[in-house]
């Protein structure tokens, strides 16, 4: 049984405008980390705030452990929801010390117990010794961990994270992500986070919910969503892709790049997604002839460390190809293109 259920939830900020969230349904299992992913304005933060109780949906219901938090005629205020939240700017109380911030939500305990629990939470996040500091005297990463400790201290049923890593610099981000995920998993916390960063979502979450214009575009494990995007939007948003129109015949499709193997079944006119890493670029040395190769011209090259991304012209299309960085192919170079992976049939129409 899911822990948290959102059932056809909708919210419109203005009476005439488009809905911020439009009939969204979602179920979160206990102990699961779910990421709401999408570009800004897709309604992901609004969804989070409806779960927290800061926004009230116009329609639909939110249920936590079988208890209706919001629904027709019901609205449980934020403080009675057992839902913890970490804000994008952390919202640490500047007038309270670190330990008092963490003990803030522990009003049910005696002062000594609350302090003890706050200290143990801080220890969990490696913040011993910072108890009596004021928030403004902490680094960004430390502030974030205090915010997490504070949100977790009262033992919420669900933890909500709003862009939790966006304020950290990129070097810190990856290591913090791993560390925070480890702690959350060790606590068995159920987590719903919001992010616009696909790398972060894929690395951190057990399940992705890709959102677009207030609706769910696709739900699945990061691997499933990445390898079989349902729409061009999802394919583009997660890692980028090449779109190819084609004519399907079962497990293959005819395209300008020739006949491509496809995952699943393709019939009639279809739109295919071919990931950049499913293509390979080979220097065009006449001595080597490989069957099925296509001629391409390199338009641009972007070095990315472990790999390089090439933009090439081929068969009247502009394609993105991921390749080895040591290939010495600058703009204008000639090369051959090989298809090494499968294409995915998208639900979008090829027009």
């Amino acid at each position, binding site marked *: 049984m899911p822990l948290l259920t959102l059932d056809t939830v909708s919210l419109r900020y203005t009476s005439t405008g488009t809905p911020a969230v439009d009939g969204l349904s979602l179920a979160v299992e206990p102990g699961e980390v779910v990421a709401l992913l999408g570009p800004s304005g897709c309604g992901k933060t609004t969804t989070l705030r409806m779960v927290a109780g800061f926004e009230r949906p116009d329609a639909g219901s939110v249920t936590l452990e079988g208890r209706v938090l919001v629904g027709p005629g019901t609205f449980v205020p934020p*403080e*009675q929801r057992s839902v913890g939240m970490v804000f*994008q*700017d952390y919202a640490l109380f*500047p*007038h309270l010390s670190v330990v008092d911030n963490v003990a803030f939500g522990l009003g049910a305990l005696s002062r000594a117990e609350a302090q003890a629990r706050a200290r143990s939470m801080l220890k969990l996040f490696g913040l011993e010794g910072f108890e009596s500091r004021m928030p403004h005297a902490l680094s960004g990463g430390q502030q974030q961990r205090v915010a997490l400790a504070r949100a977790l201290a009262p033992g919420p049923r669900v933890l909500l994270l709003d862009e939790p890593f966006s304020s950290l610099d990129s070097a810190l981000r990856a290591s913090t992500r791993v560390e925070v995920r480890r702690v959350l998993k060790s606590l068995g916390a159920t987590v719903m986070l919001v992010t616009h960063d696909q790398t972060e979502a894929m690395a951190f979450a057990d399940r992705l919910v890709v959102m677009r214009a207030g609706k769910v575009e696709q739900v699945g494990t990061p691997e499933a969503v990445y390898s079989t995007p349902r729409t061009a939007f999802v394919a583009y948003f997660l890692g980028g892709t090449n779109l190819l129109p084609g004519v399907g015949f079962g497990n293959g499709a005819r395209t300008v790049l020739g006949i491509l193997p496809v995952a699943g079944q393709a019939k009639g006119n279809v739109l295919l997604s071919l990931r950049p890493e499913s293509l390979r670029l080979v220097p065009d040395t006449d001595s080597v002839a490989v069957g099925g190769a296509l001629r391409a011209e390199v338009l641009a090259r972007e070095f990315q460390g472990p790999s390089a991304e090439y933009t090439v012209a081929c068969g009247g299309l502009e394609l993105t190809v991921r390749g080895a960085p040591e290939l010495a192919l600058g703009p204008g170079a000639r090369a051959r293109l090989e298809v090494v992976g499968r294409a995915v049939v998208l639900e979008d129409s090829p027009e």
Partner: protein
Amino acid sequence: MKRRAPGWLLASGGLMAALALLPAVYLGVRASEADADAWGMLLRDRTWGLLWRTLGLAAAVTGCAAALALPLAWLTTRSDLPGRRVWAVLLCVPLALPTFVSGYVLLAAFGTGGALEEPLTRWGLPVPPVYGFPGALLALTVSTYPYFLLALRAGLQAQDPAWLEGARSLGLTPARAFWRVTVPLLRPAFASGALLVGLYVLSDFGAVALLQYDAFSRAIYVQYEGAFDRTYAALLGLALVVVTVGVLVLEVRLRGRAGYFRSAKGAARAAAPVRLGRWRVPALLLCGAVVALGVGLPVGVLLYWGVQGLSGAEGPVLGPALNSVLASALGASAAVLGALPLAFLAVRYPGRLTVAMERAAYGGYALPPIVLALSLVFLGVQALPFLYGTLAMLVLAYLVRFLPQAVGTVRSTLLQLNPHLPEAAASLGQAPSGVFRRVTVPLLRPGLLAGAALVFLTAMKELPATLLLAPIGFDTLATRVWSATAEGRFAEAALPALVLLAVSGLGVGLLVSQEGGSAPS
């Protein structure tokens, strides 16, 4: 990370601090002439009694004014109270009423035999107290709560809504979250309001004298008034300066060690107004009652005096009104310009010296204004004879008197200003003075205007310095009102007093309309 302040900034800040300390220095000079007799009088039990009475009144007024201003500030910023802006303007107008008028107004309305005493008693309603401690408390609370209101409104508008939401998600009801997060975060606003109100009460003579409460300022006044004894008055004044230092230290403690800027990147979301629901009517009643007492009552009494007047020989009002506006506007500009270096040093280059310079601005604020006026007479005659008797001297007096009000406003605006913006300008090749002129000042504009409006309002009603230092024949609305009330010609006081209120009302309107517009972030 400590940086050294540029010399020109230190020099101008030092000049301002020196000017602000002038009244204290003057008192020192006068007190040095004191003989054993005068010292003996100072150290009597009576002085301590007076001191306690005065501090008690100051503390009580500060507490009551804060308690009154907090709900009003919240209602006019965070709730869906109908006509929030109009209420905000009306609630600030009492600031413009001179206490020598408001004291008379309270007596005329609620005093024994006053116009409202009999009807209220007949309807079984309580008559507000007007004499002694309760009377002084009421009169001073009504005339000073706007200082808190302005500070708290600004504080509430600057608060990040995420703080409140964070408290809610940690299990606090809206009411508990208000007390545990919103109110503690208003600490700087409470501190700056308390400083202005507390020190003002120490300095006030008009209300306490009229309402028969024996306070320190009255004791000082008596020495000038009755005994022509400047030496003993100076000793009493110095005692008040010592008290002021204590209050200033206390306020620094009160500010606490928190950092009160938003830690967020990007802009804060605007908080949605809280729906009052069934509390709407009580909220409107509260605002209405305060406005009735602070604005309705004085206007009513003044109109009554005006209508009742038999003489009908009021002098011209337009000239004095223009003079008032001119002098107050110049004074306001001077005070804000003078406050800039002090606030800037204290916020950007915090250190013992710079903070002491900023604190010095408050040095003479608790002194009765007559002391300030005499100290400027002293300065003018001894050092600036070419300015003495000119408008410039009056503007200088307003600068010294109202510097604390401007420093407070400018300082809090500066605290909210993102320090990266001036740094960005510096990286674009601007010299420090260019950064200040082209980036800092424009970003501070709303705060500077608010500070100027506050000084303008209080300068409009200033009396002792205006009488002694204005160019001869330079009548203002305040001197007109004084001239009439001093001889008990209340009918003649009505018109200039009403014009004073009206012009000041426009000033308050400007103050409120500047809020929340293009707030720097």
